[in-house]
């Protein structure tokens, strides 16, 4: 009872802290502590955001970016899980591929953009291909690890119960690897957003990335901030979506 009330108090407190930060922002602009061109007031930024959404153009741009990101993510996840599962379950495959995967791991996914442009030019499909290909690694590597690192005790149990190969993969390996796979999918979604935005910036394809770049170049800072807020929102929804997926698929995890 008092615990509940205590919890509510903390929530209210954190809302107050967040509100204080916005108030500080508003105050800073009111007192002209920073050039207004660098830091428009929060009300101006949000007003711009609201207008843009109401007009529909900001909404369209957000959808364009989000679509690209999601398609790329779905492709990357499917490929990553399938490939990662096959590699992870086969000890031999892991041995052969381990150094290659290790070397590719630290590569920024965005480096595929110049490669993609060099190979395919500025075709519309190129960006999606680069997103999918770049975002495969964050899923692939944890999946390989998840499937490869199954507790030997579980393997023994499966051995004694006499389960078939397929049964083992579906009933033992997949659930055991699922936490790692989902963690990988979370990283992959973040990577997708990044590659999408950067890709838009350098290929000037329609989307939030292009828009905020243009806004910065034209010194339209309220447009810029509106775009940043929207991208932050997309990022927030991404996390929320994956948190939901986690809760649904991993009900046994003790939080």
């Amino acid at each position, binding site marked *: 009872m008092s615990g509940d009330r205590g919890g509510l108090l903390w929530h209210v407190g954190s809302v107050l802290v967040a509100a204080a930060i916005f108030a500080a922002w508003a105050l800073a602009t009111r007192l002209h502590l920073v050039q207004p061109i660098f830091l428009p007031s929060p009300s101006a930024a949000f007003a711009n955001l609201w207008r843009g959404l109401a007009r529909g153009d900001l909404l369209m741009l957000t959808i364009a970016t989000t679509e690209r990101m999601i398609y790329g993510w779905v492709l990357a996840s499917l490929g990553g899980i399938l490939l990662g599962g096959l590699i992870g379950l086969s000890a031999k495959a892991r041995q052969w591929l381990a*150094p290659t995967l290790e070397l590719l791991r630290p*590569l920024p996914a965005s480096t595929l953009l110049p490669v993609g442009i060099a190979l395919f030019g500025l075709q519309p499909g190129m960006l999606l291909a680069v997103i999918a290909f770049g975002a495969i690694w964050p899923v692939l590597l944890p999946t390989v690890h998840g499937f490869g690192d199954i507790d030997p005790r579980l393997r023994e149990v499966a051995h004694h119960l006499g389960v078939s190969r397929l049964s083992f993969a579906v009933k033992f390996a997949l659930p055991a690897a699922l936490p790692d796979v989902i963690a990988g999918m979370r990283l992959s979604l973040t990577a997708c957003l990044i590659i999408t935005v950067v890709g838009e910036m350098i290929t000037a394809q329609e989307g939030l990335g292009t828009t905020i770049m243009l806004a910065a170049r034209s010194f339209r800072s309220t447009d810029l901030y509106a775009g940043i807020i929207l991208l932050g929102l997309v990022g927030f929804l991404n996390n929320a979506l994956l948190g939901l997926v986690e809760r649904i698929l991993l009900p046994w995890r003790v939080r």
Partner: protein
Amino acid sequence: MFSERIDRLVSRRGWLLPLLLMAAAEIALRISGIRSDGLARPTEIIQALLGLAADGAILQRTWETLAPILLGATIGGAIGLFLGTWLGLSPAAARLAGLSVELFRPIPPVAIIPLTLLIYGFGVRMEAAIIAFTCFWPMLLLTRDAVASIEPRLIEMARALGLPRRKQIVKIVLPAAAARIFTAVRVTLGIALIVAVTTEIAANPFGLGYAMISAEMSLRPDVMYAFLLWLAALGWALNAGLLMLEERLFGAKSGRSMR
């Protein structure tokens, strides 16, 4: 004995694959005679790499990427470390800060690129600002976790010893959390490299990322892939070096979950 010999062979086998692939690519490109703006023979790539090393371009570009990392990661990381320690020690503060963190954390660093461009124009400061923003969050959260997971009895003991707050932190809290904080630093630096290169690809005409873009625009795929290879090696070496340092300082078990 025998099993060790097998182990060594096995690990060598893993290196065989990239070599085989490169050989296959070399042969395929030579035979088919394809010349494309996007492909380059492995021998050409190696040649380009050596050429870049010889005329100092690699070192120059690498420094252009590393300089903002050093600047940005230090600033953003230090602030994250400081705030993270505070949030780790004070569950109250952590809870109060919760919403604000959740609101501002999801902003993708790439979204800030145009803003820093607006404020600083091209150059080191712009890139360092982005890196600082990006490095702040993992350092904040990982340090908070590291400090929050310290054995509570240690903190009790620190208070019981009557040490002033600052001494408590310096003498007991930070050393206790040191291993995990070092892991946080390693992870954050890895992220810093990625963000630096991404910023260079997106906007800033300096560094290794821009070198790749520039090579692509000048239709020199061999140079582009050379820089790509160098980047992969650099990223791997950075992580491996820090891992080795981590193991030397804190023992082999630390950071195991975050390779």
